[in-house]
């Protein structure tokens, strides 16, 4: 456990996920819920991209690169994919929320529960 200070980025990512879980569970406003999901996505992306960091590394691009190690390219590619996926999810969520607002006139998740039981 001697490397706890070094692991700070991972810790930040995990806490970001935890905070966004708090938002998603306890905030009843649908827009806030979506913001929570966006935050969770940022947390996961931060986690992924931090996994690939190598101490003192350069970006893995050979064009005029200085001497030294390169950071891992695969996590960066995964993060890129994940970011685009989250953009897509958010766009669709917001669209559906617009419709929910037009139908129920409210953004409260306790108001949009026509179906239960």
């Amino acid at each position, binding site marked *: 456990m001697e490397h706890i200070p070094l692991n700070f980025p991972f810790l930040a990512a995990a806490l970001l*996920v935890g905070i966004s879980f708090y938002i*998603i569970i306890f905030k009843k406003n*649908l827009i806030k*819920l979506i913001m929570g*999901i966006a935050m*969770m*996505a940022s947390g*996961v992306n931060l*986690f*992924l991209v931090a*996994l690939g960091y190598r101490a003192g590394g350069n970006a893995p691009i050979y064009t005029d690169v200085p001497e030294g190690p390169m950071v*891992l390219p*695969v*996590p960066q590619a*995964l993060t890129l*994919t*994940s970011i685009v*996926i*989250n953009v*897509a*999810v958010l766009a*669709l*969520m917001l669209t*559906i*929320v617009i*419709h*929910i607002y037009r*139908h*129920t006139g409210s953004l409260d998740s306790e108001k*949009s*529960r*026509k*179906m*239960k*039981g």
Partner: protein
Amino acid sequence: MAALIAQSPILIIAIPLAAAFLTLPIGMASKKARNALVIVSLTFVVFLVFALARDISINGIHVYTLGATSPDLTIPKGFMVPVRIILEVDGMSMLMAIIWSIVSLAAAIYSLSHIANETGQNRFYTLLLLMVTGGFGMMFTGDLFNLFVFLEIASISGAALIAFRTRFADTQEGGFKYIVVSAIASLMVLFAIGLLYSQYNLLNIGALAQVIQYTTLDKIALALLLIAFTMKAGMVPLHLWFPDAYSVAPASITGMLVITSHACMYAAFRVCFTLYGGMLDAPVVGWILIVFGILSMFVGVTMAIFQKDVMRFMSYHAISQLGYMWIGVGVGLAVLGNADLVATYGRDAISGGVFHILNHAMYKPLLFFTGGALFHCTGTRDLTKMGGLAHKLKWTTVLYIIGTLSISGIPPLNGFSSKILIYESVYQFHPILTITGIIVSILTLASFTKAFHSAFMGAELPEYKKVKEVPRSMIIAMVILAAGIVFITLFPSLIVNWTIHPAADALIDQGPYINAVTGAIP
């Protein structure tokens, strides 16, 4: 032909994808050409799936390395681990692909008239084909991150399709719940993938399975992966979103969504059996699945009896039927470490669970389609407003009876053959499981009788005097699935030997799956 089969894993994924991209431009020009494109591409996919299935039953696991100098070259020359994305098709993925190809074709045919009066049809079919792509991708991929990507494709297109009828408020609510749940589940899957990647620097399932250690980190990753996939599959108590989302979608989409649930279930099995495999603390995970499986069966069916909305009622039954699969496969998983017990009843339990996936995938979409036919004719999903429809909907009634008998496990229909496999093997593990299963079966029959009586039986109600039999394409789609039921009913041993046992063996023994990736070092 041989070249076609060698390329077929990617073609099965890419053809619906390319067709989806083409649907919009073609649909703007001509409606008929678009419908023909959808049906022809899905029919071709069915053909490819069966050709590949035949090849796999003869030659074993099929691997396809994307972008390599040769599709068989899973690991680059002079290196130890796979770098590229590998598609890997074994018995279990093949079974799922057979199910998915048939149901998606039936759903596309059903949609032709079910949504004929709606606007936005071009985009509807685009999303339908994308969902097909996502499902096949989830079933065929041998790469964890790729699994996540295809899970998202299936989820996003599913959410948009659930919310398709924007004029109703409940569709929007169902779509929103579905997309929130899928977004969070898939983000947790991604987090778990990150945890695994951080330790082993690998993403391929086979290569990971070879080196996995079951450390604390792996346990946390297992919990995240397992619960995220089971939530997407709709296991009690994570089923709450399931009826909300599935009851409001167009019926053809609901039929397909059931199979995406099965695909998530498949992913959970893949994680437990193939990824963790021998390293897994099998009895504990097995008991987790069994306990939640019993809960699913019982809560699902008791909630279903209570329902008054026909699609919601069937959705709860889907949850209940998923419970049979969880306990069947869970018992197999619980005894996985013990070769004797696996031979005595573990293999039969897994076979029963897997066979039940096949059977459920035939009768549950059929029942959802009949529910959609009721909605099509009456304009409501509320059972309290229905009655006497058997006078008008003769085909629908007969098909509903077939589905009902099958889901309740009335011999000789196919539901019985898988349930007997589950009951007999699970009884030796713990008798209470079989007893619960039989009680749930009885309750299932009771609730379907209730729905049958209130929708179809009774005098002809005055408000439905003008109702006509549903359009032909809807009947054709239902008849396809009913024909599947009859076929499985008549030849259970043929089906079990040809598809179910290879699938069960693929789950029990992770060796061939790993060897297919790592054994082929040139």
